[in-house]
Every structure is written in C-alpha cells, then in structure tokens.
C-alpha cells in the first residue's frame, strides 16, 4: 500500500561535494543548464529523466540510490 507521507530528497549536492565536482562542470558533462542543475539539487523539479539520471551516475560514478532518498515527510527538516 503506497504511503502518501513519503517524499524524495535529492542528495546530489552531497555526492558532488564528495567527488569534488563543480556544478558548472557537471552541467556541461551531462548536457543540462546550470540553472536546471541548481533546481535539481534543491529538489525544485517535478521529475528527472532516466537519461539524465544515468548521465549523472556516470559522471559522479555513483548509483541512483546515492542521489535519491525516500523519507517520511515528517522526518524532513525542510
């Protein structure tokens, strides 16, 4: 049964910091604008295409689970 109180948190900024990757460089590598990357980092997008997710994982050498986390809404401090 789906839990309506779950939201997806984007941890892209954490992984980028771990890989020491700048936003400008990552945006250029995956082919999106810096503005869109910033929106993605802040979670202000409605969704992400699999193609974009795959390019981010390739650029940062990580798994989708490293970038996205499902948390209960009342657990999210934001």
């Amino acid at each position, binding site marked *: 049964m789906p839990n309506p109180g779950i939201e997806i948190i984007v941890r892209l900024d954490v992984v980028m910091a771990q890989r020491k990757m700048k936003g400008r460089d990552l945006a250029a590598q995956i082919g*999106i604008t810096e503005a*869109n*990357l910033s*929106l*993605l980092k802040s979670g202000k*997008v*409605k*969704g*992400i*295409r699999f193609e*974009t997710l795959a390019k981010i994982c390739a650029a940062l050498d990580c798994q989708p689970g490293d970038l996205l986390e499902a948390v209960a809404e009342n657990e999210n401090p934001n």
Partner: protein
Amino acid sequence: MNTLSQTRRIARPLSYLTTVALLAYPFAMLAMALSGYFNDAFLRDAYDAVTFPAVLSAPAWGAIYAIGVGSVALICAALWNMRALLVHYATGDVLGPDTALRIRRIGHLLLALAIYGVVSHTLTVLVLTWGNPAGERALSVAFSNTDLFLFLAAGLMAVIGLAMTEAARVADENRAFV
C-alpha cells in the same frame, strides 16, 4: 529543417502581413467612408432585393455607419489577436499559455463575426426600410455558405484553443523535468 524552424520561418512574414492589415484596414475603411464610397448607389447595389426610400434620413445613415463600424472593430480585434499569435510563433513560443489563449480568442471573435454578419444584415435591412410606409418595412434574415463556414471555422478554432491550453499545461509540466 524541423517543424519549429518551419513554424518560425512561416510565421514571421505572416506577422508582418497581419500588422500591415491591422493598420491599413481601418484606415482604408475610413478613407472610403470619407470619400463617399459607401453612398446611396453602394447600398442599392448591395441590397438590390430591398426597396427603400430614395433619400435616407441622417439617423438612418448614422445607424448604417454604426453597424459598419461594429464589423470593422471585430475584424480589427481578430487581426490584433492573430498578429499576437504569429509573433509568438515567430519567436518559437508555440506551446505557451498565451498562444492557447490567443487561439481561443480568435475562435470567439470569428464566432462573433459570423453572428454579427447575420445580425448586421437584418439590422441594415430594417434601417433601410424603416422609412417606408407601414406595411412595406422588411425584416430579412440571410444565412449564406460563407456564414456557415465561418461558424464552423470559429468553432474549430475555439476547440483547438482549448486543446492547446492542455498542450501548454503538459509542456509546462515537461519543462519541470530535467
């Protein structure tokens, strides 16, 4: 060349043409009115099936010109919205909310023009024959193939406008995906 490039390429000169029409049409109508083109002979030729007095009163001329101004105003409003739509298309903005709104407005204005065409004919005949003796006044309703196609085109534009509103909503949602 993709369809967006084609749209921009075709829309740009059309937008210029519509701008020229929007400026020229009302001035042309005004010039023709001031030059006396819309005179008694013009009316008798346009309404040759109607019998009306040899001399029309000033209020009758005023009413006929007012009916004509209504038609010009509706056409100018339609041209204004067509121009705005074509400018959007010329800049590549084909699925924005304003383009959908413009299409709906054009549809509504074409519908208003179609209705006005029928109503203005009836009103004009009434005004022309108002000076006739009692029993010789006429009430005429005319509906031509042109009116029918204008009604259908107006309805089609209005429905397309609604569909484009939905398309704009979907496009906006797609833009929120990275």
